[in-house]
């Protein structure tokens, strides 16, 4: 099983993105998550100040009501 299967619900990525404004920060956030193969994501927080934006981007791995990957058990792939 993939390591992300052990994530109980969501994966938050917090960072600072160099961007001109909040709008660009949103586009960069989306691009970042897609480049990591995390398609079910949402921007929890964004605030642009100065040279970029402080962001918190969330990818849901297991949403309530899903069949949870962490219930399946098994070893993590190397």
């Amino acid at each position, binding site marked *: 099983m993939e390591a992300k299967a052990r994530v*109980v*619900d*969501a994966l*938050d990525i917090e960072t600072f993105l160099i961007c001109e404004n909040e709008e660009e920060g949103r586009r960069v956030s989306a691009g970042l998550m897609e480049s990591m193969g995390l398609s079910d994501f*949402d921007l929890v927080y964004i605030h642009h100040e100065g040279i970029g934006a402080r962001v918190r981007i969330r990818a849901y791995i297991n949403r309530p009501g899903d069949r*949870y990957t962490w219930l399946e058990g098994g070893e993590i792939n190397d």
Partner: protein
Amino acid sequence: MTKKRVLLSPLDPVHDIGLKMIKNALDEAGHDTYLLPPDVTPGEIVEEALEKEAEVILLSRTLGYGVAELLGRFVDLVEGAGIRHRVKIGIGGMAIKPAIAAELGFDQGFGPKTPVEEAVAFVEGKTYTPPREGSAKRKGDLVRERTYEYHHQEIKSLLEEISEKTLQWYEKIQSPGIKRAELREKGLAGEKEYLEISDDSIKDFFSDGILPSGLRLIDGEEQKALESIISAGRVDNPRILQRQPHQPLVFIQYGTGCPFMDIAHVKGTEGWGADGVVHFDPSWGAKTEGLLSGLLSHEENGSVITDENLKLIKKALESSTLWQVRAHRGLNTPETVLLAGEAGAELTKINPVYGSLGGGTDPERLLADSIKAMEYAARYKMPFDMPTNEELCGVPAYKAFAGMLIVTQLGLALGAQPVLQPLFCYSPEMMLGGQMEDNYIDYNAAKVMALRGIIDAPIWAGAPIGFLTHTEERVQSSVSTSFHAGMAASLEIEGISIASADEAYSGGPITLPARIDTLQGTGEAFRFLGSARMQPTPKAEEWAEELTENILKVLKEVVKNGSFLDSLYQGILGSQKEGAYPGRNGRGTVLKRK
């Protein structure tokens, strides 16, 4: 015990406090210790070890730069001196990872926050067993210290008059909610008579197995997998957040929609110090006549109340965890309290004032059902809190408190144990009135001071504390909760419900890490304050007096009206202008008892 000669030395330009603490503990245990000054070279340490005939060398290293090379060189020097076979070497400090220490040839590496006792055990050649904090954590009790004696006699007599009349009214009425609870007591839930007074969605489920949309039955395989995780994942060592006896019990609220995800959140938060957990049900459940059955998962917020869901969650809880099932705002209030009592909940939530003025249920129906629910709460010895969330609709605190105090007296008259629940919040009243322009302490403190001046009852602030002060930013949100927790500790109240760091985020489900963030923050607030207190300004006392006077005025108006129920419709306890609207769910369903 064999006395050991122990050489202690920091491998840094400054002393590590940890090393000094270990030295003190070793001295106390009767060992001979030699603590070298800082900034000594590895060669000098080895020379000292030879001279003192040290049997154990304990080193510390705080700085991370070049640590591997330095430690490797030290081990080489000890070997070169020909004493490695008779000297045990341990290394600890902020820069030390136990695995790297072992790789470099140390007998033991101690990471950050290693207890002193572990280092002493290493010197003495004993196996260190960490204390089982979990076994020390006891289930909290919100009501134990309170007498329920009134300090304000005029308010007491008004409340007794209102309560007496309300209970006389209750004697003569019946409702579908009361009836269903009585049928459930007889084991007839889901049977013909029960379904006759239930909504179609409930009938469809019991007759044809059709589930409302967004719900699914959890299969046996999933249940088996969860049970194996639960049994393997008992929380042996839950944190204890409180540092002083006066610091409040801390509750988190769960209700992801799915009992399995709820259990994951509950187990996670128990480990991080939650003293209690509160079950949130979906809002549609409060508007539906009748309850479903089975292990059910729900795609949206709120976990469905069924006998099976509740019992599964109870099974997963640690013995030290308090459990509350809310029943305060809907058409299944008595049945929910009954189910909660049967499932082993310690606490419930009942408040017909908020539930009917801000929760959407008809006042007459909810008042009748709530009284029945209080009877069950008394029977199962479940204290119930009374949330005053109508404040969030715009109702002034004094009106919400007048309503809460009436429910308190009703509960006392029925032999139950009510728990006052003022909101610690930045309410619309505060936004318009400006009472919180300077600080968030004074008005919240005034609320507690006013209530304490009226009755000696337990106070559990909610829900959650700091309502409307949180933003989507994780640190701001956690800090705001932490400060409110510190204020609660300063006011010596019995309990608090805390939000997660996702409180202001509405784009998706709350996550477990977001719950842990605020538990961490709350623990830090308690640690920071200890026996010290946050100090309100004199304004708090002034506002407390004003609140008490206004509560008294409202209660007089209710008495003048002659009916608590009619006062709810008439806006005496919160008017439409203020933002309180008598609910319509269940209107016209209360009948005279035959």
